[in-house]
Every structure is written in C-alpha cells, then in structure tokens.
C-alpha cells in the first residue's frame, strides 16, 4: 500500500514483515529512528520478536550472531562508528557463514566528527565478507531489505543493506509497503541447516590451522562470487510478485549508445538523473547505479560499459593516500575491453555536503580533457584551506 513514510519508519515496518525472531541494535544517528520504530512495533504488539537492548554495537552484532547460529532470523542496524565498533564481529559473522540482514544507515566516520551522510562506514568493512547492496531511494531500501533475507538465507552469507543516512532515512516520500501475504509468499520461514542443536552438538568458531585456513577463505570468496546468481534471481522473483525491481546487480538509465557514463552508488543517483534531464544540452549520458558492490558484478559492468569512451565514477568515500575506492575496482574490472574506457574518479558529498544538480555540468567538463585527471574530491573548496594544505597533487578545478 502506497503511504507517506519516513525512510526509517518504512524500514522498521518492512523488517517486521520479514518476521525476524531476534532483533538487537544500539541506537546511533542516523539509524536511530529505525530501531525506535521497531521498538514501538514490538511494544504495540504489532511485531513479535525478541528485541534485546544492548550496551554497544559490539554486543548488538555478537547477540545476533549467537541468535542466528541457533537458527533465528535476526536483524540489526548501525552506522558510522557503530559499524567500526562491530567490525570484528562482522568479519566473524561472515566467516562463520551466518545468514542475517543489517541496515547500514550510511554516515561519515570520525575524525573530524560528522553525523552526516557519506559511505565511508560501509566501505570500511568492504572486505568483511558480507554482501553489500546499495539503495538509491526508500522504495529500493524496502524491497532490498526483503530480498536481503532471501539472498542471505539461500547463500548463507550475511547481507548489509546500505541506505544513505538522512538523505534516505530521514526523508518522507511515497513508499509502497508490501502486504504480509506477499512477503510470506516470497520469504519462507528460515530453516538454518547448521543451527546449533544440543542434541547434535557442534563447535562453532574453532581454531583453523594453516592446513585449512586457505580453503575456508577460498570457499568464502567463491560463495560471494556465486551469490551474484541469487541476487539476480531474488530481484527477478520479487519483480514478478510486486511489479518492482530493486535494481538487480546494477541498473542503467539513459540511451544505450551514449559514450559517456556516470557510475555511482546510493541516493545521489536520483540527483544525477534529475540533472541529466535538466541539462539536456550536454552530451547523452548513461547513468549506472551499482547496487551490488559485494559481490562486484564484473560481467554486468563490462556489458553496461561496452559502448562507453568515458566513465565517471562518483563515490561518497575515499582511500586516503590512494584515492577512489570504487573507481579503482571499476578500472580493474574494465581492463582489456574491446575499446578502452577512460575512467575518471571523483569523490563528492563527503560528510553530508549537499550535491547540487550543477555538479553534473562540472563532471561533463572533466570528460573534455585528453588524459583523465588524478582522483579528486570534486566539490572541495580549496580556498578554505591554507596554501600548504592544497597538496602538490591537488586537482585544480
């Protein structure tokens, strides 16, 4: 049913529809409203689950790890410092191949302290071994949360649903919340094949010697790569049921024969679409929304980029001392194409900086150069820094 909902409220209602048996989360801006709304649903008898108050994100993650190991469908949510605090447990959840879903309400990382949105937090746990799906609007976040349970339980890999803090979590917009029957049809009860059982005791998390560690890592890596099929299938099936796709591995908006592309993750995709429709005098542009960041959909990306001469990668995080995180992977994925794609790498909107439509114009200017400029934060205002902080490699734009 189409309703006017704040993103966080919609996520809480959606989580309830997925019938988790155990929820544990520690509130942190901008994830707080999700947990608050779940607590209200539980208190009002509209959601049946064990909701556990914990003293930290480390505990929240540990608790859902234990509960999921015992066969419960579980949920947690966090952001920023909370993600970092639970990072040790996140690696364990993934390495132990425990299915679960968490929402990352994307927020910048300290220092400097910022409560606002970028994606440095989920990027910081990129290698934890979780599936990471990025949402560009609240409808996608709702649909992806439901799909995430199915993907997670089919692959025995945890799924992190990334939605931009404030930009999505605190935005009210029309959202279609599916009915319980549809979600129940799509998502059968969780039946964990390796659930802890006192009658058939097993050990979890034991020491693995060098004789088997590499094999465990190999199988984890390949489980993630193979999850691509399940991510596609989960979206196809959901589309058949609900009439909506949540964006599969990646989706492309714009003319197929465009030679310029812009790739991004999350909510700035919509702003880029609006900018493309506003600045119609600029060359035709294909906008690529990367939804599945882990596993990284190399084949789908190569296909989407086959007609491109230039691809701008616009991301909300950076690897200090190197530059773009997503762009370096995109560049690696696009090597040995029939015709070379020049990759331009920019960060934008860090720590909640607004990304106005005009950025689109600025991006198009970058494509005009013969050799792609080195990575830069495209909306940095160098005049706010003293000259010695401009850096010798600072891009001039």
């Amino acid at each position, binding site marked *: 049913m*189409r*309703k*006017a909902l*704040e993103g966080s409220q919609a996520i809480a209602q959606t989580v309830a529809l997925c019938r988790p048996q155990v929820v544990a989360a520690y509130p942190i801006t901008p994830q707080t409203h999700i947990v608050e709304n779940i607590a209200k649903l539980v208190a009002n008898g509209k959601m049946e689950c064990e909701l556990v108050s914990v003293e930290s994100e480390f505990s929240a993650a540990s608790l859902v790890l234990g509960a999921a190991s015992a066969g419960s469908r579980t949920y947690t949510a966090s952001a920023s410092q909370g993600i970092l605090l639970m990072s040790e447990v996140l690696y364990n959840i993934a390495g132990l191949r425990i299915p679960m879903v968490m929402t990352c309400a994307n927020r910048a990382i300290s220092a400097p302290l910022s*409560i*606002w949105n970028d994606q440095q937090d989920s990027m910081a746990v990129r290698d934890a071994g979780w599936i990471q799906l990025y949402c560009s609007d609240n409808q996608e976040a709702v649909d992806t949360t439901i799909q995430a349970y199915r993907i997670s339980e089919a692959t025995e890999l945890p799924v992190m649903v990334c939605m931009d803090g*404030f*930009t999505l979590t*605190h*935005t*009210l*917009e*029309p959202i279609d919340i599916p009915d319980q029957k549809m979600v129940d049809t799509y998502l059968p009860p969780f039946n964990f094949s390796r659930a802890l059982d006192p009658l058939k005791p097993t050990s979890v998390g034991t020491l693995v010697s060098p004789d088997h560690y590499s094999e465990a890592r190999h199988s984890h890596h390949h489980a993630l790569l193979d999850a691509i099929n399940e991510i596609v299938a989960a979206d196809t099936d959901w589309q058949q049921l609900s009439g909506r796709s949540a964006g599969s591995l990646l989706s492309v908006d714009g003319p197929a024969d465009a030679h310029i592309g812009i790739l991004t993750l999350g*909510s*700035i995709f*919509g*702003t880029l*679409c*609006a*900018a493309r*429709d506003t600045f119609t005098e600029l060359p035709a542009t294909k906008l690529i929304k990367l939804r599945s960041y882990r596993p990284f959909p190399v084949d789908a990306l190569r296909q989407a980029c086959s007609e491109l001469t230039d691809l701008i990668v616009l991301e909300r995080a950076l690897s200090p001392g190197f530059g773009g995180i997503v762009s370096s992977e995109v560049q690696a994925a696009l090597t040995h194409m029939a015709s070379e794609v020049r990759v331009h790498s920019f960060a934008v909107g860090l720590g909640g900086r*607004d*990304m*106005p*439509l005009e950025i689109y114009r600025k991006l198009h200017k970058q494509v005009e150069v013969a050799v792609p400029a080195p990575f830069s934060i495209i909306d940095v205002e160098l005049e706010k820094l003293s000259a010695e902080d401009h850096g010798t490699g600072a891009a001039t734009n």
Partner: protein
Amino acid sequence: MIEVRIHGRGGQGNVVAAYLLATSAINEGWHAQAFPAFGAERRGAPVVAFVRLNHEPIRRRCQVASPDFLIIQDDALMNVPGITEGLKSGGSILLNTSKSSEAYASEDIVHSSLVTLPATQLALQYLGRPVPNTALLSAFLQLTDLLPVSSLTDSLKERFKGEVLEKNIALIEAASKTIPANLWKQTANA
C-alpha cells in the same frame, strides 16, 4: 515542481511541518518529498526543512536552493542574513508574526509577496502551547489552494490522537479563516 523551504527553531515542529505538508500531498495523489537539513539538534537553534511537491516522481535529493515559497516560523529569523536567499522572483513568504506585513517591506523582499500570520498567538489560544507549525500550514494551503485544508486534517489524524488532534483541527480551521484564500494561487500554478 513546487519547492518550499521551512525555517524555524528547534522545538517548533519544523520537520513535522515538512512531513505534514508532504503527507497531505501524497494522500491527495501527489508525489512529494520532505526532509530536514539537520544540524546539531537543540531547542531554539535555527533549523531548516524542505518540501517538494510534484505531479511526477521526484528524483533529485539535493537541498532546495531556489524555493517558490518560504514558511518562516519565527519572525526573529528575518534578521538572519540570507534567510530569503534563493527565493524565486515572484516567490512568496509566509511569516509567523503578530506584526503586519508592511513592517517587513525591504529591498530583500521587494519582489515577493509576504503574508503574516500570528501563528504563535493562535497556537497559544487553541493548543495552550507556542507551536506555530500547523496554523502556518493551514494558512499556506489557504493561500496557495494547492491542497484542500481537509487533507491537512487527515494527515494530522495520522500523527496525533485525542485532545491534541482536536485542538489542532480547531486551530487550523481558525488559522485558515484569518487568511485571504487563493492569494498565491498563481504562484502555485506557475
């Protein structure tokens, strides 16, 4: 697309005002988007929220830079430099003050229409609390005729119950009567 920027102070229900306006529009079949520009939230600090209303899906998520309308919940904010920044030429300002609009004639707002509403006074009278947001929204709908005032009543029903709801309904009815209807209809339809 119609874009509205709402200025207020922490505690005045600035975000709730944005959410109520967007909810009313969505319930009337519009596409709408409402979101706050969060600072460090605390009572009394200047806060801003944004609303977009459209008949097509809204894809942009940047802040509203050039609003068609400003709703200003505290007249002291009129002294803050840049408060009317970006307001479209021909755009309109709804200001919560007990003063008349003539008191705000200035170079900054020479091209705009400014309407005042003693929303805090009305709120004190009807709610017993100085929360001006719903009175201002009611006046906004009356001025623009974008949505029926009854749509605001419906979205209040989704958010409030009992005495608070009844008092707010009485307040928005009273507020709409103090304002000339359809004064900004042309701007809203532009």
